[in-house]
């Protein structure tokens, strides 16, 4: 029992590292300032707005080519990723369809065979409501890996008999890859590699171009301002099951690593 307690302790410590719970009385204490001193707060806010406006106007006059453009089409998408890393998503099975839970272990190895990360498919499985033993998966399993020659080792426990395979792949810095596991008899090439760009190819319409690179929340905000609704149809390499109804004001988003990689209105053709 001590062993279990120690393991639970270690897991809880590691998982809650960096999470801060705010003391509610302190949070509350800072709140009433705008109520108790509304004139002071309003005046300060006006001054700040004026200062920012002046600064923006001043910066806006400088049309020099040396300015760094910050646009919505950047690929780093604010995810905070280390540019020397690549991001790999693993998918397995049919997307977002309730199936029996899968006992699938994944190990990412570097060229020397050292383990980069050990993952389990249970991390992306969510229990299917009202169906004990069944799960749905609403996206691929993401793993950040260093650039280089790597491999994915997958082991599926099936009726007591493990089925394993190893899929070598090469990741360059900044790559976004999808490994589609197809565990069966083959021991190699069991997880064909696809780039995110291929996955998302021809799935962005003219109305969706400006959404590429935004986070889901940013895309929602922009769509709402444009009188559109959004729905997510693909997450981290996995296509989600969606309804086939036609709504011309609905923007279908595909996300990878939290960022929009394709966006298309219902019924809209892909932009060339």
């Amino acid at each position, binding site marked *: 029992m001590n062993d279990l307690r120690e393991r639970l302790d270690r897991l809880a410590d590691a998982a809650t590292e960096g999470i801060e*719970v705010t003391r509610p009385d302190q949070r509350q204490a800072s709140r009433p300032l705008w109520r108790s001193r509304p004139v002071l707060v309003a005046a300060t806010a006006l001054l700040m707005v004026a200062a920012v406006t002046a600064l923006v106007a001043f910066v806006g006059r400088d049309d020099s080519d040396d300015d760094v453009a910050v646009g919505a089409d950047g690929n780093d998408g604010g995810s905070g990723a280390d540019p020397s890393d690549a991001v790999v998503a693993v998918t397995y099975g049919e997307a977002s369809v309730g199936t029996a839970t899968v006992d699938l272990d994944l190990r990412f190895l570097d060229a020397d065979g050292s383990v980069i990360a050990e993952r389990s498919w249970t991390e992306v499985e969510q229990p299917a409501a009202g169906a004990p033993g069944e799960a749905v998966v*609403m996206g691929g399993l993401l793993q950040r890996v260093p650039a280089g020659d790597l491999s994915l080792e997958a082991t599926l426990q099936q009726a007591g008999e493990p089925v394993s395979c190893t899929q070598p792949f090469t990741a360059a810095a900044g790559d976004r890859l999808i490994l589609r596991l197809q565990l069966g008899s083959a021991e190699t090439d069991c997880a064909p590699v696809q780039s995110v760009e291929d996955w998302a190819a021809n799935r962005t319409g003219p109305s969706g171009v400006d959404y590429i690179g935004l986070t889901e929340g940013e895309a929602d905000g922009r769509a709402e301002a444009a009188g559109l609704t959004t729905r997510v149809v693909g997450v981290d390499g996995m296509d*989600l099951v969606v309804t086939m109804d036609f709504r011309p004001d609905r923007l279908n988003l595909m996300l990878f690593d939290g960022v929009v990689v394709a966006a298309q209105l219902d019924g809209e053709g892909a932009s060339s």
Partner: protein
Amino acid sequence: MEFAEFFEQTAPRLLRLCFLTTLDREAAADAAQEALSRAWRDWPRVGADSSDPTAWTTTVALNLCRNRWRRLASQARLVPRAYSVDRRSDVLPDIDLRRALRRLPPRQREAVVLHYWADLGVDACAAAMGVTPGAVKQHLSRARRRLAAELGEPELELEVESP
């Protein structure tokens, strides 16, 4: 006891408890924060001498964790966009334990965490979970069998006496 003192003593443990029962950092932070906020809002009653604020907050937090779990499960069935990616899960230790806990039904996981991690006796577990001591023993018994099978270890012993 002042709320500030109670918060300092309770918040880290409550956050860990919530994580172990949900295995989701975001859900754990939400539940712990909300439970402590409710305790503060109702502190004259919760913190009264005759009350046990730790037990009260634990019960509230467990309810919040459970409700979120149900909501997520139902969204997963009905709403295509209900998904979550735990960006720290690749650096968390003990994948075997995480998998074994994830496979336990929520009530069994609660019982295990309260009894074996939080050191609560069966009666205290029952109070925190809002079930009878018999139900706790049943949850623990089933969970022990599953954990023993999953982790390949001998079955854990049930400690009936409160620590």
